[in-house]
């Protein structure tokens, strides 16, 4: 998978893609001293990697006027709506997808 990921920036260092499509991941809680972009409602919840979107400059660095390089893998993570919203009344098959950078995720072995 990682070999096919497009690289948007010319940097010597390439951050490896850590998660593969179908892998279960958990959104980490407040792990950032800076510009955390994970929506509050998905933190601590588990979902499945739907796709690897590519590598993009780190928004936590861009937010302070830096280059954001090396770029970090970005994933589209698929959550069950009922996982995020316990009182969700619609179909249990409903999903929500959120794009989340690699450093805001951790493997879910549970």
């Amino acid at each position, binding site marked *: 998978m990682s070999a096919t990921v497009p690289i948007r920036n010319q940097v010597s260092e390439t951050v490896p893609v850590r998660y593969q499509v179908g892998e279960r991941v958990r959104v980490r*809680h407040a792990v950032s001293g800076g510009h955390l972009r994970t929506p509050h*409602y998905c933190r601590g919840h588990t979902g499945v990697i739907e796709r690897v979107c590519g590598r993009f400059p780190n928004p936590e660095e*861009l*937010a*302070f*006027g830096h280059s954001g390089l090396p770029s970090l893998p970005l994933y589209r993570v698929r959550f069950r709506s009922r996982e995020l*919203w316990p009182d969700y009344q619609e179909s249990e098959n409903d999903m929500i997808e959120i794009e989340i950078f690699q450093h805001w995720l951790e493997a879910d072995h549970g």
Partner: protein
Amino acid sequence: MTHHLYFSLIEFMAQTGKDQQSKAPSAPNPSLLPGQWPDPYRGPHDMGGLAAGPVDTGDHALEEWEKRCWAINGLLRDPARGAAIGRANEALSGLDESRRHAEELGDRYRALAYGERAMHALARMLINRGVLTADEITARMEAHR
């Protein structure tokens, strides 16, 4: 207050490029949302899942000054503007950076109208980068009072 800030930044833009402000902005329309914000790791922008009351789905036409707020922000992302004030090849604004400064407004984030928020974030960003000093901005705001 925001209008004075707006005028002072418009003047700054006139210095870095060709933009001139044409007419006075109309009164802002601040809207405050009720409710507590207990989690220190939740930004004021991060509202997903919170009770927000009825949602106004009507068209939100931007005032002329609000459009100009965003135009200024966009132009400051052009590195050619930086060169005009001796900051060659430096974009003076960035999307993630302007979001950070807006979100760091804290309670003011929700107290300010959309365009006002953008101007306050922009002022903080220019001060942070050493492009303008707070005193310079304040002096120009006073001049428009």
